[in-house]
């Protein structure tokens, strides 16, 4: 909805305008702590700590490695016990462990390895439904805390695939949800294609990918977070397009396949419930991604649920998932 407004207004501006590149001088910037924390039912928690970087400072593989915050004291308390997380860098881990981190964080294994990710995690605590978790981070004498709740999972009634009008084999995954009326429900949608590439494609462009699983992890398309404002207590059907890894070079993430699932795909839908503050963070976060660069969006601050001695960015989010398998045919 919002995307359409933004696109159309952008069109107006671009059409009437001349554009030129200019130099801008921004004021001196003081870095902030960025917390990307995830805890999911039956999964280990994963916290990524990084720093923000001035807008015109260079970002490449080397400077990226410098963004990670090391030697922080990170603890999670689930109401009965408190566990301190250990810092693990990708180079120290086995490929299975890297996969687990990838699933938990939503970052592909290539990125994790290529950018020398370091994460804080623990094997001693797994997420549980209807539990509240408190995260605390201490670094260089400063302290931050955050709270999130893994709510009760609300499963979809059903999920299926439908070919898109005018297409032969391409389409979207549809789902039916009965939203409970009693409280405000907040959701996030993920999808993963677990089948492998088995065709070279029209011009052989998929050749290098043959034998590889199409998606290594659950991918959330932009707009994946939503609440029940429009359908509280209602059963309704909806669909999602296929999200993609940022900066994906894969041919099926480009026209004319981008956004579509294909007949023959096996898709696992991860439909998760999240708490209110997590939803508020994610919806503004996704909105900002969708409108990057548009003057018609307001420059907003994404409402973080991290509090502390100094302002921090990011959020700590708990997921209560339900899983559904869809065979596309």
């Amino acid at each position, binding site marked *: 909805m919002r995307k359409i407004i933004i696109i159309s207004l952008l069109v107006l*501006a671009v059409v009437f305008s001349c554009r030129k590149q200019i130099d*801008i001088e921004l004021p001196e910037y003081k870095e*902030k702590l960025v917390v990307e924390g995830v805890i999911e039912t039956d999964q280990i928690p994963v916290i990524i700590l990084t720093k923000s970087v001035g807008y015109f400072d260079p970002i490449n593989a080397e400077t990226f490695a410098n963004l990670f915050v090391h030697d922080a004291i990170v603890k999670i308390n689930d109401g009965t016990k408190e566990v301190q997380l250990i810092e693990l860098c990708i180079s120290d881990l086995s490929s299975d462990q890297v996969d687990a981190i990838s699933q938990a964080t939503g970052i592909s294994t290539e990125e994790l390895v*290529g950018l020398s990710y370091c994460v804080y995690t623990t094997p001693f605590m797994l997420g549980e439904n209807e539990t509240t978790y408190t995260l605390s981070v201490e670094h260089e004498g400063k302290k931050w805390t955050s709270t999130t709740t893994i709510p009760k999972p609300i499963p979809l009634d059903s999920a299926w695939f439908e070919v898109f009008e005018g297409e032969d084999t391409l389409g979207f995954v549809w789902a039916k949800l009965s939203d409970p009326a009693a409280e405000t429900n907040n959701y996030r949608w993920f999808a993963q294609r677990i089948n492998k590439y088995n065709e070279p494609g029209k011009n052989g462009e998929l050749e290098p990918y043959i034998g590889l699983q199409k998606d290594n992890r659950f991918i959330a398309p932009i707009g994946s977070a939503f609440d029940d404002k429009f359908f509280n207590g209602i059963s309704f059907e909806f669909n999602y397009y296929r999200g993609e890894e940022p*900066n994906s070079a894969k041919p099926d993430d480009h026209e004319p396949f981008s956004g579509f699932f294909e007949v023959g795909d096996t898709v696992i839908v991860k439909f998760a419930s999240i708490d209110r503050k997590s939803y508020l963070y994610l919806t503004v976060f996704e909105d900002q991604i969708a409108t990057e660069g548009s*003057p018609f969006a307001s*420059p907003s601050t994404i409402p973080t649920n991290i509090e502390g001695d100094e302002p921090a960015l990011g959020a700590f989010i708990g997921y209560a998932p339900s899983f559904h398998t869809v065979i596309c045919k």
Partner: protein
Amino acid sequence: MRKNLSILFIIISNFVFAQNKFTISGYVKDASSGEVLLGASVFVEELMQGATTNQYGFYSVTLPKGNYTLVVRFFGYDDYRDTINLEKDIRLNVQLNQESSVMEEVVVEAERTNQNVAGTEMGTIQLEVSQVKKLPALFGEVDILKTIQYLPGVQSGGEGNTGFYVRGGGPDQNLILLDEATVYNASHLFGFFSVFNADALKDVNLIKGGMPANYGGRLSSVIDISMKDGNSKSYHGEGGIGLIASRLTLEGPIVKDQSSFIVSGRRTYIDVLTKPLISDTSAFAGSSYYFYDLNAKANYILSDKDRLYLSGYFGRDVFTFNDNAAQFKIRIPWGNATTSLRWNHLFSDKLFLNTTAIFSDYNFAFEATQGQFDFKLFSGIRDWNLKTDFTYFPNVRHNIKFGANYIFHIFTPTSVTAKSGETEFDTGDIVIIYANEAAIYALDEYDVNEQLKINAGLRVSMFQHIGPFKRFVKNNLGETDSIINFEKFENIKTYFGFEPRLAIRYLLPDESSIKAGYTHNYQYIHLSSISSVSLPTDLWFPSTEIVKPQIGTQYSLGYFRNFFDNKYESSVEVYYKNLDNLIEYKNAAQPEDNVNDNVDNQLTFGRGYSYGAEFFFKKRYGKFNGWIGYTWSKTERQFDDINLGEWFLSKYDIRHDLSVVLAYDFNERVSVGGVFVYSTGSTLTLPVAYYIYENRFITEFGDRNSYRMIPYHRADFAFTYNFPEYRRKWVNKCNFTMVERKIKSTLVVSVYNLYNRANPYFIYLTNSGDPLAGNFQTSAFQVSLFPILPSVTWNFKF
């Protein structure tokens, strides 16, 4: 006993004096068209006392019995002068003749008006439409609202922005009236043109400080625009054909000297504007933009004491864009419709009444289709308004006005329907907001003595939000806690405002004066803009129990001086404004939040101030005329929820603003006009940093409005050629007579943005590439709108 006697004496003496006073009253009109003239001076030379004609051209002067020389004077016309033997009440309607030659360098000294020095209106400027027409205009379309922005204290919102700012106030703080009807969105094409067709207008009055008590409802300014009544003597027309639009105005009597009409229309050409829009692929077929407006007015003089006017305006913009390849289509129609029915009645030659019934409507719709997905948004405001205004001239020292105003508002801030294929989304009921707004006022313009004149008034206003209404009560996480339903006509919230207004003028020697003003204003309806650029999709909404009325207090002081016997006018004005209950969207509010919710749940409130100094120098008479205006101003805001509660520069802060407007009449045939404007760049909130989340680069924004774009400056030029009014008519091979042409025409060649400066419209920062691959790059781009734009317009008159 003594007290009673003295009272009796006072009463008797008043009665005795009153018996010896008589009133001259009547209307001042243009001799050739019959149009009434507003603001003409009617005074008695011996006493240098008199009155000015009101909005309907009516004046009334009460004096002791005697012989006087009565002078009626108005800019652009020859004086009227007559001796009056005043021994009973006289009805005197005066017809003024247009000045024989506007370019006379030496206009009779005494004829030059000094209204800017003598009037109490501070911060009031009357624009002469005839002068405006000589100035260069964008695409050749003469625009009153653009010309207002060349005056000090009035700043443009920037190219492409619909509104303008007066003394640091936002676009919704300007009350724009067309024949007393409120015009909510006075712009076509996102602010490139205004909805006012200059051919249909008579008078434009801008009040930016010292707003008298008969106006209210907005904090920053009043732009009071009067349409022509229509030539009551003969039929005429005028119009023009231009590159972008054409217009035609027809006027004439219905019954000679008793009733007349004027109809004026304007429309753009689809082709010219859509050509750049439609790129090489025909996939964009069906994309277009056009606007039209229609002004119509009729009036009827029922009797010596009564006159009726009926005016209407109807305008529409429609923008459509199709991208057939992407199955994407949008259509955005918007526009105003206003009607006013007015009745002038003279109770006596001292008491004038005008009662007006007004209907005003503004709405816009946004319709988008993407494949199966269909989305419609509608927003509008509709007013039913009844007002009555009395002007009372008890004697030559007092000019009293009082009256009452009632408006019934119907707001539809957001009405959305959306469906995907066959599934209709539940976008909730359309929440319509009903409100009553009312005011009563009284003011007196009092000539205390020869130097001191005071305009003091009080306006008492009221605003009431009434049901039916559905209130979504939210907690601080944005979740709906409960819903309250209010019944029809149930009082939900009432506000009262006491608005004292004071303006003082003290005459000094050498054609100069000092003026001071104090005004306290309430504003009950507001415009919310979710983006940093104002668009026709901004929503009008009223005060409610969550949204308090905006309050403004303004102090102003000015020194006015004319030189060389009123040939040059100059002034310096300083002002300070305090603003309260200002409104912004909450951080991270999104348009869809308004659906199935109340608009005011998305808002946050704060305060602000603005101050500045305005310098103005004008030459009104002669071949070479024009003005220079310079404003230095500052305006800031403070909201607890925005910018961490720290004060920040308002987006209406434009530190320096300079306008130079010049017109030169070479001779009867040729005149040229030029405009140069310079203003400090607008403020912006820019990103200051990146951070990573879910493997995406997200921008962090800096302090609100902490960045300034480069200054805006531009020069325009216009060249006007008046075709000869007479042509040769050959009687035989050797002789001819000069015959007046039936159609007189003018060719205007104008150039907008003469030196092709790329003025910034906005700046955006963006990134490209992949950090892993080492080609990640951030860059800043500046988008500009108008390059050098020449145009040609052929104007005609008959």
